[in-house]
């Protein structure tokens, strides 16, 4: 968002992270062993294929910019190896969408150095968790980064930040993460013009120098005043 100052304010960053969200290390299969502890990561062909197809379909519908497959298949040969193999197979069916694959550590370094080189990132669950926070940091923090979980029949739109108990109840939280998630919901349900109007109102609000304390402390306003300012700038 151009009016939010970050270390990368002069760099045009537009990133969409496609993160598999049902498998990998996050299935909750952990156990203690006599020597310590173990966790199980599950990768299914169907799960890998589903997120890869979604990412390439999305890329095709949104400007055919490059899809970067991010993995750690050099070490995790079976699990991430499968993810990479399936993603490459899917990529072959989308010859019109440019595609590359990068090992996660190398990708992370490049993302920080040249974030403008990336658009669509396709990655497994655990890596996606790390990458999405890093990406949020590039554009101004978790307070403004939206998230969506898209299933076959249901979709959950959520703020990516935590409960922030230290500022809870003080009326100073930035609602943008949830509001931008809600914008994605407007789009999802077919109200794309409302989505566009809200986004424009947000941009105007920020350009007019109205922001919450996480953006900049001096001159900041509370959650309600910020919301009212956005409402006042909504074009009917």
């Amino acid at each position, binding site marked *: 968002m151009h009016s939010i100052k970050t270390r990368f304010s002069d760099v045009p960053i537009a990133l969409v*992270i496609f993160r598999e969200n049902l498998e990998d290390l996050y299935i909750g299969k952990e156990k203690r062993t006599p020597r310590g502890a173990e966790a199980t990561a599950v990768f299914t062909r169907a799960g890998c294929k589903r997120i890869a197809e*979604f990412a390439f*379909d999305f890329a095709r519908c949104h400007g055919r910019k490059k899809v970067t497959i991010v993995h750690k298949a050099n070490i995790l040969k079976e699990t991430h190896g499968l993810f990479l193999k399936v993603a490459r197979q899917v990529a072959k069916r989308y010859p019109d969408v440019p595609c590359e694959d990068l090992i996660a550590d190398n990708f992370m370094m490049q993302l920080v150095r040249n974030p403008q080189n990336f658009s669509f990132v396709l990655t497994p669950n655990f890596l996606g968790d790390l990458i999405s926070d890093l990406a949020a940091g590039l554009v101004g923090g978790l307070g403004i980064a939206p998230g969506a979980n898209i299933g076959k*029949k249901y979709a959950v739109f959520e703020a990516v930040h935590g409960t922030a108990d230290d500022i809870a109840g003080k009326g100073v939280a930035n609602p943008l993460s949830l*509001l931008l998630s809600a914008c994605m919901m407007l*789009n999802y349900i077919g109200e794309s*013009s409302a989505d566009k109007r809200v986004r424009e109102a947000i941009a105007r609000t920020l350009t007019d120098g109205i922001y919450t304390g996480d953006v900049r402390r001096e001159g900041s306003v509370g959650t309600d005043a910020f919301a009212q300012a956005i409402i006042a700038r909504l074009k009917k």
Partner: protein
Amino acid sequence: MRASKKKVYSVTVLPGDGIGPEVMAATQKILEATGVRFHWDVFPFGKATALTKGRGSKKDRVRIPKEIVDSIKKNGAHLKARQQRRSAKGIEALMSSSETPLSCTRMSALFKACTASKRVSLMCP
């Protein structure tokens, strides 16, 4: 505007814990100001309302109450702020359940049809 003829969208709302209720209230207010009509199905869900939380790896999760799952099934769209959670297993199961499989291609086609701005970016430049 012929408000009476406009579609009303039913959305499941989980304001959650911490700053969740504050940012949810602000977001709902702004959404309503767009003129799109919503029916909010609000459920308390978070630390205070966790149903089961047992010991051991399998039970050490917050279960999602059945009425929330039913509401999501009914509404399809679901707006969630934060709850202090272990793992939202119910929603995951719900999302992966495929009674009437809608292929990813069709899902994305839906996006395409819905997207006038041509870009739904997770991170805004």
